[in-house]
């Protein structure tokens, strides 16, 4: 420790490069959330199905996504599928792995939020002459949205942090990939990774503060 001389200037000079990497990180995180939310809705519907041929695969997805390491899921998307002759680029594999993980967690978030709305709300809607679909859309869904919103944003933060695992499948353009590259060329490990950590921290903080602001604006009740 005593003999190490910090060289921050070098790290700060690389900042634009790292911010470019951060953009790629955000791109993957956002895409993985869009895909994840879409699949999660389908999984939630499938898991609630009485037909076991429909519910069982959805349950399996959720079980694997939530009870195995995200690193394993990304590995499988890249090297695992590669064994079967399906080659995904690091970018696609990372995106697929995180989307897989997001879908599993969000499925349970959505199911939980549905269960939190008392069935009497639907009954009240029906008794006013709404059909089941209308009652769901106008009464149940908006309330579910509020319950699921912050946990979903939490998953967004988790997705941002998970992108750092891309480096293990050869991802070199995201924040961690760029940082690792700079590290390999300069051996300024501490400075570069410390700076990367600060950038991750600021991004996730910004996402959470933004989410709170949106929630405050949207959910006045």
């Amino acid at each position, binding site marked *: 420790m005593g003999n190490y001389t910090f060289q921050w200037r070098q790290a700060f000079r690389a900042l634009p490069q790292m911010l470019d990497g951060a953009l790629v990180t955000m791109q993957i995180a956002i895409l993985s959330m869009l895909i994840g939310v879409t699949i999660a809705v389908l999984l939630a519907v499938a898991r609630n199905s009485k037909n076991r041929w429909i519910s069982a695969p959805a349950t399996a997805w959720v079980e694997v996504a939530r009870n195995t390491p995200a690193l394993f899921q990304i590995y499988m998307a890249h090297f695992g599928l590669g064994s079967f002759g399906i080659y995904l680029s690091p970018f696609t594999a990372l995106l697929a792995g995180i989307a897989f993980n997001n879908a599993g967690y969000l499925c349970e978030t959505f199911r939980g939020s549905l269960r939190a709305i008392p069935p*009497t709300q639907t009954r009240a809607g029906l008794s006013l002459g*709404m059909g089941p679909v*209308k009652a769901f859309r*106008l009464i149940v869904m908006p*309330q579910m949205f509020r319950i699921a919103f912050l946990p979903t944003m939490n998953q967004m933060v988790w997705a941002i942090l998970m992108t750092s695992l891309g480096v293990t499948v050869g991802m070199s353009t995201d924040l961690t990939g760029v940082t690792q590259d700079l590290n390999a060329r300069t051996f300024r490990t501490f400075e570069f990774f410390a700076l990367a950590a600060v950038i991750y921290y600021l991004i996730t903080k910004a996402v959470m503060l933004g989410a709170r602001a949106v929630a405050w604006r949207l959910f006045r*009740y």
Partner: protein
Amino acid sequence: MIEIENVHKSFGALQVLKGINLTVDKGEVVSVIGGSGSGKSTLLTCINGLEPIQQGRILVDGTEVHAKSTDLNKLRRKIGIVFQQFNAFPHLTVMENVTLAPRKVKGMSKRDAEEIAVKQLSHVGLGDKLKVYPSRLSGGQQQRMAIARALAMSPDYILFDEVTSALDPQLVGEVLDTLKLLADDGMTMICVTHEMHFAREVSDRVAFFNKGVMEEIGSPKQIFESPQNEETQKFLSNVR
């Protein structure tokens, strides 16, 4: 006119209604009294088709509620129901709670729906709470909002399911006053209630339910002053 003919209803093995016969004419107020589990609340949810029945039939203006060909959504527009637990929509303001169904079910314009809502909400004494969310209302106010919400659909009938049972005693009066107002307006009402004074004062007829059977029905005077049925006598001597 609501015609209930030999209605049997069970939840699994539990028989809740055992052959109920009752006809309610336009403009009539019928109160249903009886102990817990006597089937009186279930009867209401059968009338608007929220619950299926196993035997018998229910006709509302000649339409059989449980017939497969019946459009329940359409039928329910003319049968309002107010629940014990208010069932306010928490994500909507008082105004939105009341205008939702007129707009989305009847296809009314926002302006027309709001005009009706203001009228109904003022009627139940909530004219100054339009922009408020239900969580800011007391139980009695939420229940009055629920009544306004049902009225905004201009139903021909309203079913009241123990609407004062979940309220603090000091809030019961304001809700009962609202019901009286409606009765005076000539609304056709079936009120499941534990409020004997209300049943006595407001109803045209009072029905006593016991264990899924309608033991006795008659004018308030008859039921409260000279009940013929032994179970009715027992029940009334206990609640007094």
